[in-house]
């Protein structure tokens, strides 16, 4: 296994963990907004994460886990 292979695998793992934990949600949101309008005003990361947890307050059924 070469160094490049290790880096590639590590990169895939990092990508998977970020996707699974929702850490990449902000990047996706920015990319989404920019895709429609490159000049779009986007929320800061802080504001975005706040609005995301606060949305769960409004409807707790989102993200409900099972027994």
């Amino acid at each position: 296994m070469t160094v490049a292979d290790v880096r590639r695998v590590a990169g895939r793992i990092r990508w998977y963990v970020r996707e699974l934990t929702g850490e990449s949600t902000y990047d996706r949101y920015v990319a989404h907004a920019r895709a429609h309008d490159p000049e779009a005003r986007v929320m800061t990361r802080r504001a975005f994460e706040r609005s995301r947890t606060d949305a769960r307050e409004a409807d707790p059924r989102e993200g409900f886990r099972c027994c």
Partner: protein
Amino acid sequence: MALVGAIGWATLALSRGEEVSAAWMLAAALGSYAIAYRFYSRFIANRVLKADKNRATPAERLDNGVDFHPTDRRVLFGHHFAAIAGAGPLVGPVLAAQMGYLPGTIWLVVGVIFAGAVQDMVTLFFSTRRNGRSLGQMARDEIGPVGGIAALVAVFIIMIILLAVLALVIVNALAHSPWGVFSIGMTIPIALFMGVYLRILRPGRVSEVSVIGVALLLLAIVAGGWVAESSWADFFTLEPGTLVIWMVVYGFLASVLPVWLLLAPRDYLSTFMKVGTIALLAVGVVVALPTLKMPSVTDFATNGQGPVFAGSMFPFVFITIACGALSGFHSLVSSGTTPKMVQKETQIRMIGYGAMLTESFVAIMAMITACIIDPGLYFAINAPVGVIGDSVQSASQAVAGFGFTITPDALAQAAKDVEEASLLSRTGGAPTFALGMSEIFSAVIGGTAMKAFWYHFAIMFEALFILTTVDAGTRVGRFMLQDMLGNAYKPFREVSWKPGVWFASAVVVGGWGYFLWVGVHDPLGGINQLFPLFGIANQLLAAVALAVCTVLLVKSGRLKWAWVTAVPLAWDVAVTLTASWQKIFSDDVKVGFFAQRDKYQAGIDAGEVLAPAKSMDDMRTVVTNSTVDGVLSALFALLIIVVLVDAGRVCYKAIRDPESVKLHEAPYVESRLVAPASLFATKEEKAELRAAGVGPEGGIRKEPVETGSRT
């Protein structure tokens, strides 16, 4: 694969009177899953549902980058699995092990293949076709208001019972255990710290805070051992009744605190622990390959006199093991969050069916952990105190009465190994599971010296996600209640109207708190009485989901294939209604709630105290509990019948007059998204991805520049 499965089953079934290696159970289960996934799930996806890779999913059509967005299939599989798998598949199989390992294992494997995974997959498919409508909404849209309301009421009551039973599992595991209480107690400040970290210090850095949280958690488990040996031990040694009060107070506060402070961080922590521990357990079982000490079938399977739960194999094994074989609760996850994130209809097979097979595998591992410990010890842990008494001598005698042997010294030693005062009557499954897990882990790492650590690690891991469920479930229950009360008085619907939030929370917490209190104080044993109710409730929800699926298959012109959900529905209804019938009408006082009530009422009238009750107060408690439980059983049966009759009416109408059918499906839009269907992309799929110019996770086809006008 088929061969491996067949050999596994043959070894399990044919072994008589000798100990079998758990490897055979793994082989039988995994072989069967592989065949089922390869053939049956493909048949359902291609022939029955006709999943269409050219049809855009809601994630593609309604993509808003937040809740609707096409998610990589492997990521979504992880999300979906983490959402459906919780304490359920770890508890049910442990209790069902009283009938031997074979009945439960067969049901886990056959049930998941033909019922559980089918339900999850078909519900996910139909919800995806309806922009992620919830099960309740689909019931209302496609069956009618009566079935819809019955489904809604069912979900609410089930939620209350579910929370009470899960909380009871925790109370039974933590009572008189300073180590456990301290470790679990510490999860609250840890979660608060993580919440502040994510909100204020470094917003959104979930992995880093989870790593910190898990490290603190492990420290809390180790510290629990020090606390248990220090002068603080008395402070953390709590009676079950005290724990109930703490649980209720915690449940109320947790559900009115902001999500970011406690629920969200706890959720990260418990998911992290859950996935990690399950992976660790799988490795441990494969490496240690323990032998199963429990007989394949015990006498309790036929005589129905089992101390863990009463009743014979049919229907009660199928009620006790819900999660892992067929769990109605999954239909709430399959209709809601997941369908809004599916990239391709063709991936529903891997996500819906595949994730449920994985959960069934978790349940098989729970079955293994329960069956590798000495059967005598198993029964001493899982029989209620009214049956085995409260000393190692009386427990040893009682266990001998069940046909197993364990000496009082061995019972005392088992408790000492994990540094608990006693393991007797620690009902609810969690301690048994923890003991089995500590046995497996200590065989791999650390030996006997690490046993106590692994035991408390397992208890902590179960308690952590049960507490998360208690918090999240109370919120969902409150939300539903607020919605219902909103019909009478509008402000109730406002989530910002604090009195409404507090009132609704108090009602929900009071509901499960009542059953929890009753469960802890029931002289007949709380798990013994309440677990069947929980099982019936969960299977009732499965019946609602399967009924909705069947109606949709019929209405969408798939009558020929309706048996795919109708057969598991018929089985589930037979199980649920037989169990309800026996719980209501059985003359056996161990099974029938009303027979129980009559016996103890007669005792009160005659002024006699009947064992295991110790006083007149106990007698009155039994009478009240039996009456409430009996009435609930009847209510569940009634609800299921209402939903079924209404579903039958709709099906009949659809068959008689196909013209009148109105489907609420979202219209067809052609998909521009390319993504593989299964875990590994096939050769053709790889070529397609390359041609579309997107990476292995899939994405919107890049149009050549000259035809780019469509974007």
